[in-house]
């Protein structure tokens, strides 16, 4: 599967963005609030590499808030592209031992493409994003 982006947990989008810009990244989609996940998101690019900065709002007992408290500013998931997300999720759950921790939903920061989060005890968190063939061209 092709990597779409690396998810990077940060406390401050603006501070992290400045540091990544000095490393050669540019802003692909500026910071926006994702209400369904209660996080701020910003996408950065550096050549073919893409980073998703994620700053959770510190409220409630969500896995991402707990993770942020535990690891601080650090990468925490890799997102992979697939053409049929329902089929890929089904295959990963039933054949490869993944568990769905966030069901399919549109991601406002990626043009409302469908995304899902899965977990496997051996490799941790994985995100899938549905990118149709015609959208890749």
């Amino acid at each position: 599967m092709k990597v779409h982006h690396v998810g990077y947990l940060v406390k401050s989008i603006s501070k992290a963005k400045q540091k990544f810009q000095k490393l050669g990244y540019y802003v692909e989609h500026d910071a926006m609030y994702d209400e369904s996940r209660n996080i701020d998101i910003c996408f950065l690019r550096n050549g073919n590499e893409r980073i998703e900065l994620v700053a959770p709002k510190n409220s409630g007992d969500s896995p991402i808030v707990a993770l942020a408290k535990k690891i601080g500013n650090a990468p925490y998931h890799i997102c992979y592209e697939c053409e049929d997300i329902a089929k890929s999720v089904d295959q990963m759950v039933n054949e490869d031992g993944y568990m769905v921790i966030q069901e399919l939903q549109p991601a406002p920061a990626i043009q409302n493409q469908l995304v899902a989060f899965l977990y496997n005890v051996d490799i941790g968190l994985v995100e899938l994003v549905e990118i149709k063939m015609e959208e890749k061209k």
Partner: protein
Amino acid sequence: MTTLEKLQEIFRDVFADEALVLNDATDSSDIEAWDSLAHIRLMSVVEQEFGVKFSFKELSEMKNVGALVECIEKKL
């Protein structure tokens, strides 16, 4: 070994606490490290060890060990 005994072994391993004792009423308020993040890891290990699959709904609705035992036994 009963489901509860096997679960106790898993909980002891996941939470690195050999003194941990489970009963049906044990929930996340009884184990300090059992937050939403630990819940994901715990359920993933439980799936692997028992050879069962939990739906997203089951994962979010299991409130205590008794409910977990019941859910596992229905699937075995």
